Every structure is written in C-alpha cells, then in structure tokens.
C-alpha cells in the first residue's frame, strides 16, 4: 500500500510531468503514423515560396503627355496539370470557342508538355476580363490564371517605326522600345510568400527585393503633327503607287524632332501585321543620295570661297554636256543663268560649273559642318551615318556628282538637320527625340552671311522655281526640290536606273522667323511625272499648312490679307461706335 502521508509535493510534480510527457509522446506517435497523409497534404498545399513581383514597363508619352505606349496587366491562362486538363474534353471545346481557336490547336500545343507544371497556350495569353469570367465558369481543372503585362500603342501604325514594340515577355524588341529598354523596363521585385495548392498567395512573409517601376520616357514628338505627316505621306504613296517614303519635321529652334513618319508601317497592337519593311524607320536608318536638295549648300560653299557671286553668269546651252564618258543633262535648255537662277531652276550643268570655280576642300568642310557623313547620335538601333568620302579621295567626276547631290549619302534626318542650319544662319543644333535631353548646339556659328543669302535664294525656288507647289498662302517658305535616280549598281560598277527615281523636298517655314524644317521623301513613285516638285513638294505643303495651324504660328506673309483685315476692322469700328454710354452700363 502506498502511504499517502509519505508522498511529498515534489513526487506529485514529477508524476504530473510524467503524465504530460506520456500524452505528448502519444500525440507524437499519433501524428507521425496515423495522420501522416492528412498533414503532409496540408504542408504540400501551403508552401513557402519566393514570388516574383512583376513591374510595369515605363510609359512613353509625347511632348503633350499623350500616351504613346502603356502597359496594363492582363490575365493569361496557365495549364498546371495537363493530365487533369485533358479529362474534360467538352470544356476544352468550349474553351477553344471562347478563345476563337480550333480545339486541335490547343491539343497540339500541349502535346509535348505533359510533364510540365507551367504551360502557356499562345492564344490564351493576355485575355480580356470578360473572357476570363467565361473560362472560369467552365470549371476546368488543372488550370490557373496569372497576371501578365500587355503593351498598348494607341497611335498604332502612325508611330510604329519610331516607337517599335516589345516581345511577349515585355522586353524591348526594336526602335525606342529597344534603345531605351533599360530605362523603361525597371526591376522585378521578389517576396517570400505562403501559397496554397492552387498557387494562390495566402500570406506574405517578407519582401526580399523591392520592385522598381520602369521610368516614364517623354519624347519630343507631337502626335498631332505625327498624324498629319503620316496621313499625307500614306496618301501620296498610295496615290503615286510608290514603294515607300518618309517624312521628318524638325523644330529648328531647338532641334526637337516633332514628327518622324515612315511608310509602309505596321500596327504594333497586332503582331500579324508586322513586316521587316513596315518596321523600318526610314528617317533614321535609310541613307540616300539627296540629289538637288544639296544645291543650296553648294551655293553656300561657293559664296564662302569668294570666287562666286550671285550675279555670275553660266551658259548651260544646249542643256547637256559630255565630260569624259559621261553626259550631264538638264531638264531642258535653260540657256544663260545667273548663280541664283542655277539653284532656282535646279540646273545640273550650272551646278557643275559652279563647283569647278572653287576649291573642293571648302565644299567638304561645309558638308562636314552641317553633319553629312556623321551620326546624329540619337541612341536609335541601326542608326546610319550616311556616307561622305574625304575630299582628298574625290576625283573630278566625284566633284561633279557631288555638285548634283550624288556620290554621298544622307538620311532624311541629316537632311532636315542640314536645312535647320540654313534656318539658323549657320548654327548647328543636333536633333533629338527625348524631351529631357539637353540641346546640343554647335558652339561656332559658321557661314552666317552665306546662309543668309542662301535663304533668299531658296525662297525664290518656291516663288519662281521648281517648288511652286510647296508655297503656303500667308507664310514665307524656303526649300529645294530633288529627284534622285535610284542606284542599282554594286561595288564594281556604278549604275543608276533610268526608270526608278526618288522624289525629295526639303523646306523651311516660316522663313523669316524659322520654326519648322520638313523633309519629304517618296521612293520610286510610278506617276508620269516623278520630279520632287510634283511628288514631294505638295506633301510638304499639306503637312506644313496643317502643322503651322496646329502649332498656332502666326502668318508672316499676309500683305493681301492685311488689306482685307483693315477693311473688315473699319466696318466693325463704324458699327461699334454705337456702344451704350457709361452711365447706362453702371
């Protein structure tokens, strides 16, 4: 018999502890052997995992903060268990109907992904919320939805060749999207989370890497001008059955690119419209021979040499001239021309004669000053620098070709930059398309007097010369037409097509207080008349007219209108004399 009197308090505590230990042991055995499955399932269902926090790609906006590219999250369907997914064939058929694809294509796509826990269906990426709800109602097993960003381009084909697009994983693929990828992309974050069996986040434990959103990129582009430029270019290319074309509008006061249009184009919102030709930014990566549009610069160089005056006479009779094996021609026999008239009528023979009167080094230095053969450095993929040989390599035939705008190449943007130098009386301002970047101004203002004279001459090109179709009522315009024969040769032999041409026009408006430099290129028009003055100049006129109105630039050539205005005002003032007396008003 246990004598209760002999039991002290410490025995009771030890006994209680033994009972507690036994209970714990029993519970451990119970958990380990009896409820193993139940609890291991629970653990599997709730796992601690690292979770990537996807960040949104930065927005691209124009100078007026209009959206050019924006990313928004969309739902994408993921197949997590193909075996389970394939069980409900009726639901898969319904899924195919919702996604507007054939059922076989879904089977085909998932055929070799049986062991994968994460399989995309191409047509089920970036689905609108309405479709997601319909799919959820199908109660398909083995699927889940994840959030993925989709990039939208509200301007579509109008800006495609400048903005470019991203791939499915939101990486910049071309154009600005590619060149500014680092800024736009941002950095994905990472957090430790508890997820349930379906991959849904139940709880967040900690954030390991803080996500960094992509930064906003503000461009100098004005979408209104961009649309006008693209619309007129497209209209002309379709009507003239041309192969391609481009337009660039430059703000001559600060070098900002206001519009950069290329045609053909594609819709970045619809990848099926993508073509290599459509994606080509012809303003920045297409170099071409500028033909007669370079003649104002020949004149500037000639004037700078002091060996040529505007009143010098050149006899271009009978309208052609054989030099060596080559025959140089004018459009017609212009007879005797002054230096000024050579440019106004775009005489090739006259230009050759001017080029023969001064040192070729002077012409080279001027071309170098305006940026020919030098990259604009826009940080744009595949930007080309054009082509200009050193003057020491120029043969006499090269000098003649250069005087006519051949034997070297410029991009439309370089040509616009060159015309902005005329607008700024010799001051070189480097073009840019990112708003925040500082304006790069060439410190030295060279050839000021020469370019002032050139301005007067290119004004007469519009008034009396080859570019009458570029004239804008109410505004002063200066410009030069160009018609280049298409180069079809190779490294061994130079060859120019007699049938295929490139029509060009480069102009400045308003000329008295320059604001816009516009270059229009139409490649291989199939019209009866293919001259720049007929094909490219009217496009310039339409674009410039709308652009000046949109930018609210006052007319600077309103002599006729002023008369109308003064008449009108007189009538108004006569009428307005009958205003009530002050006493009656108060």
């Amino acid at each position, binding site marked *: 018999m246990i004598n209760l009197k002999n039991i002290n308090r410490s025995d009771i505590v030890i006994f209680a502890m033994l009972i507690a230990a036994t209970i714990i042991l029993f519970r451990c055995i119970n958990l380990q052997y009896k409820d193993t499955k139940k609890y291991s399932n629970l653990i599997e269902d709730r796992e601690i995992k690292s979770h990537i926090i996807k960040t949104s790609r930065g927005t691209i906006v124009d100078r007026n903060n209009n959206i050019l590219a*924006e990313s928004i999250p969309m739902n994408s369907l993921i197949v997590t268990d193909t075996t389970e997914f394939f069980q409900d064939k009726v639901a898969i058929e319904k899924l195919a109907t919702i996604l507007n694809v054939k059922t076989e294509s879904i089977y085909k796509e998932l055929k070799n992904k049986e062991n994968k826990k994460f399989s995309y269906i191409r047509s089920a990426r970036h689905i609108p919320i309405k479709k997601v709800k319909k799919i959820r109602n199908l109660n398909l097993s083995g699927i889940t939805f994840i959030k993925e960003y989709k990039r939208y381009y*509200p301007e579509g084909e109008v800006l495609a060749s400048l903005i470019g697009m991203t791939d499915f994983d939101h990486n910049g693929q071309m154009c600005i999207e590619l060149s500014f990828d680092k800024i736009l992309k941002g950095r994905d974050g990472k957090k430790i989370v508890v997820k349930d069996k379906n991959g849904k986040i139940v709880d967040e434990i900690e954030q390991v890497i803080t996500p960094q959103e992509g930064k906003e990129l503000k461009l100098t582009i004005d979408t209104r001008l961009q649309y006008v430029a693209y619309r007129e270019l497209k209209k002309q290319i379709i009507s003239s059955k041309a192969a391609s074309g481009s337009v660039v509008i430059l703000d001559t006061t600060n070098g900002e690119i206001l519009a950069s249009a290329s045609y053909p184009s594609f819709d970045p919102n619809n990848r099926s419209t993508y073509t290599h030709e459509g994606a080509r930014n012809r303003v920045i990566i297409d170099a071409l021979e500028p033909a007669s549009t370079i003649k104002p610069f020949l004149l500037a160089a000639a004037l700078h040499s002091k060996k040529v005056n505007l009143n010098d006479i050149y006899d271009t009779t009978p309208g052609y001239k054989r030099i060596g094996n080559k025959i140089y021609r004018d459009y017609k026999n212009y007879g005797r021309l002054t230096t000024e008239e050579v440019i106004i009528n775009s005489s090739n023979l006259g230009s050759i004669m001017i080029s023969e009167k001064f040192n070729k080094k002077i012409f080279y230095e001027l071309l170098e000053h305006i940026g020919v053969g030098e990259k604009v450095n826009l940080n744009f993929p595949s930007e080309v620098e054009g082509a200009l040989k050193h003057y020491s390599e120029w043969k006499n035939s090269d000098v003649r070709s250069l005087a006519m705008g051949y034997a070297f190449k410029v991009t439309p943007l370089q040509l616009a930059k060159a015309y902005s130098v005329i607008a700024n009386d010799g001051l070189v301002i480097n073009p840019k398309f990112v708003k925040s970047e500082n304006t790069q101004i060439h410190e030295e203002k060279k050839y000021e007097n020469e370019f002032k004279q050139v301005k007067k001459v290119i004004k007469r090109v519009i008034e009396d010369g080859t570019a009458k179709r570029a004239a804008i009522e109410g505004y002063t315009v200066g410009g030069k037409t160009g018609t280049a024969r298409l180069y079809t040769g190779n490294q061994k032999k130079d060859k120019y097509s007699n049938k295929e041409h490139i029509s060009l026009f480069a102009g400045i408006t308003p000329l008295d207080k320059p604001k816009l430099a516009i270059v229009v290129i139409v490649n291989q028009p199939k019209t009866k008349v293919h001259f720049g003055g007929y094909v490219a100049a009217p496009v310039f006129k339409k674009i410039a007219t709308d652009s000046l109105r949109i930018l609210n630039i006052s007319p600077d050539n309103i002599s006729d*209108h002023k008369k109308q*205005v003064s008449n*009108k005002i007189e009538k108004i003032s006569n009428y307005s004399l009958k205003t009530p007396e002050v006493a009656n008003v108060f």
Partner: protein
Amino acid sequence: MSNFKIYTIGFLIITNIAFSFGIVLIEHLTRSQHRQLQYFSNQKYELRNEWKKARIDQGIYASYSKIEENAKISLKMFLPKNRKLIYIDD
C-alpha cells in the same frame, strides 16, 4: 519571506503578464496594419491600372485621327480655304 520580496515577486509577475499582453497586442496590431497595408497597396495597384486603362482610352478617343474622323464624317466640318481666312495681328 519578507513583504518586500512578496511585493517584488508580485510586481514582476504583473509586469511579466503586462509585457506578454503587450507583445501579443503589438503583434496583433502589426499584423492587422500589415494586412491593411497589403489591402491599400493592392487597391493602389488596381486603381493605377484603372487609371492606365483610362489613359489608353483617352489616348484613343482624343487622338487627332479620331477627332478629325468625327469632325469630317459625323459633324461634316471642314477647314476653310486659306484665301477665306482673315488673320488679325496680336
């Protein structure tokens, strides 16, 4: 046992209990605030996405091409010819 010791033990026990409650309370408050923070950040994310969608909509509806199309087709508007314009100097 002296009274001083009893009071000290009593004080320590009460302090201990108070701290325990305090820790539990603070933990609870932190968790609920964290949950609230998560809720607000989710809401911020949703609102920002809504704003982005609205901006895209605005971009489409207010695009120059759309305005021109509506003006020409729906409203039958047209630009006056240049010679009909009267310019008034500022």
